[in-house]
């Protein structure tokens, strides 16, 4: 028996006017109890539909959902005891903040579980948890966006669910507020020990908060792993280019040892890197180069030659755009601001951090 949520070959067909498409196309995933797992991808990748199927708001076309080993695919949404935090907050406008939060405790299916004084005490406790104690008697339209989302959060958490689902909850908030709320969510996850399943298209948000990230595209999970795995060892070109500012340069495997390999770019430059790759010598791969893993160096073996075509002063660092020799592609390089500037058009040699460069096969 697995604890947590397990998705088995989950699929969902959406039928529009005359055409049908798989919004979710064979998702397999195990989300451990108590984990913070994020479904990350661009809009239309199926992440929200997957979340809605877990919640029971959407019926899968095929596949199964298990919770602690028990098949809940056909269980109605009302009985699932997983609480959702919606992007548009979905507060009840005619009720006070207090009544909004108490809603899940007062429904008939919870009748007898709490007495009215207990409900009031619990509501007060959770309003305090999200710092909204003083707003209990207001109506939703009197609150700001961030406050509304905290009400929505309190409303979800007050019923003590094992699993909390988040559908782009910070999507409609401005950047500053989003950062504050991210910290808040991490704190709540740590303090409450519940399973958080989180949907977002914002990779920084996903990286900062999650125990594990599922990168999705066109209804499929492209990679499921820790933020570090996804960032440092992307499974394929899609993940590599979606996460961070990576550039992928065409290369061929030159030679391969047990825990290192050497690849050759189109222009003949050779790059050595540590780690394993699922590719035989001679096969075509993509070499993933991130700006922070490249540095200017003296021309030598194991450097890549190129020419500076642009530079951007970013404050923290100077970002150079370097076109690689032999039309091999373009990479970005971050250089310290206290180093002498490199003029446009100058030829440069780039050293690659062998521990961080990575090869993608697909």
């Amino acid at each position: 028996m697995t604890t947590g949520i397990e998705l088995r070959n989950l699929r969902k067909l959406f039928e529009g006017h005359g055409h049908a498409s798989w919004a979710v196309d064979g998702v397999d995933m195990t989300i451990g109890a108590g984990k913070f797992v994020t479904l990350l991808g661009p809009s239309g990748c199926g992440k929200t539909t997957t979340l809605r199927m877990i919640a029971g708001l959407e019926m899968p076309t095929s596949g199964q959902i298990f919770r602690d080993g028990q098949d809940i695919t056909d269980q109605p949404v009302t009985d699932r005891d997983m609480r959702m935090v919606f992007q548009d907050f979905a507060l009840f406008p005619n009720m006070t903040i207090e009544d909004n939060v108490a809603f899940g405790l007062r429904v008939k299916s919870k009748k007898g579980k709490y007495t009215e004084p207990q409900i009031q005490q619990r509501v007060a406790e959770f309003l305090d948890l999200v710092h909204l104690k003083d707003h209990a008697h207001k109506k939703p339209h009197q609150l700001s966006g961030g406050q509304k989302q905290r009400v929505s959060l309190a409303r979800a958490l007050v019923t003590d669910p094992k699993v909390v689902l988040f559908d782009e909850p910070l999507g409609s908030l401005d950047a500053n507020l989003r950062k504050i709320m991210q910290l808040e969510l991490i704190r709540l996850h740590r303090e409450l020990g519940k399973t958080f399943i989180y949907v977002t298209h914002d990779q920084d948000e996903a990286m900062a908060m999650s125990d594990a990230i599922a990168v999705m595209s066109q209804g499929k999970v492209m990679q499921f792993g820790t933020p570090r795995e996804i960032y440092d060892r992307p499974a394929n070109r899609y993940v590599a280019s979606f996460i961070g500012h990576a550039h992928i340069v065409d290369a061929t495997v030159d030679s391969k040892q047990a825990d290192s390999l050497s690849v050759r770019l189109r222009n003949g430059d050779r790059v050595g890197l540590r780690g394993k790759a699922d590719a035989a010598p001679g096969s075509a791969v993509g070499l993933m180069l991130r700006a922070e893993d490249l540095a200017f160096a003296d021309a030598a073996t194991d450097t890549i030659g190129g020419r500076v075509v642009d530079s951007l002063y970013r404050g923290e660092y100077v970002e150079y755009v370097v076109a690689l020799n032999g039309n091999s592609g373009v990479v970005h390089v971050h250089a310290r601001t206290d180093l002498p500037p490199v003029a446009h058009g100058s030829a440069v040699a780039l050293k690659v951090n062998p521990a961080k460069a990575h090869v993608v096969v697909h």
Partner: protein
Amino acid sequence: MRAFGNRTLVTGMAMSVLAFLYAPILVMMVFSFNDSQYTGLPFNGFTLRWYEALFSDEQMLMSIWNSVFVGLGVVVISVLFGVPAAIALDRYEFPGKGLFRRIVMLPLVLPGIITGIALLGFYLTIHLRLSLYTIMLGQGTALMCVTITEVFARLQQLGKSQAEAAANLGANDWEIFKNVTFPGIRSALFGAMLIAFSISFDEIAVTFLLTGRENTLPMTLWSLLRREVTPEVNAVATLIVFLSIILIVAGMYASRGHANESEA
């Protein structure tokens, strides 16, 4: 206001539009207090005798009551069938949904006389005796579309997520309707009820064809007017104008309540 240029001209135009709209009504109201047998000048003095006449005119009072009775019945029918239809349109997929959504507007577009003739033929075929109830049924089925479109539009505007949130929190269908859906559509529904009532109240084409022995107010006024315009008619009209103003204010209150809520 400066953008409009000539302020005097704009004010003048606005005034003349208002005058064309409301001066006749004002004149009619004034004549309802005129102590003269005829509707017209000279103004002989203030009297309430036309109101007295009105309130002792059994036939007139009966027809007012009939109109109110029919109007209320129409409201009940249009709410009872319109609200579930609007919810079905909003929430469920069913075959012919697109067609149903468009065709539901037809009774409002069709000339009343056509609807009336069709319903008359139908009632006669199934041997339904013409009465106030047949009027109610005829108007109610036609005015149902007001409720459907108003409530449907509000439901679309509200979106699904509030109802989904309620279900997600463990509420059953009835609790969702009572706590989320109904408060959301309440003002739209109230507006639709007012519209249905006021259209029903002065409807004459369908009523003319479907009425039995009892008459509604527009029918009674019509038959009175065929002889002459008595000040009593002015008195009735004046009362109806005041009633309409009350309904409009009530409607405004209802929609203002919504404006607050929709910000949430």
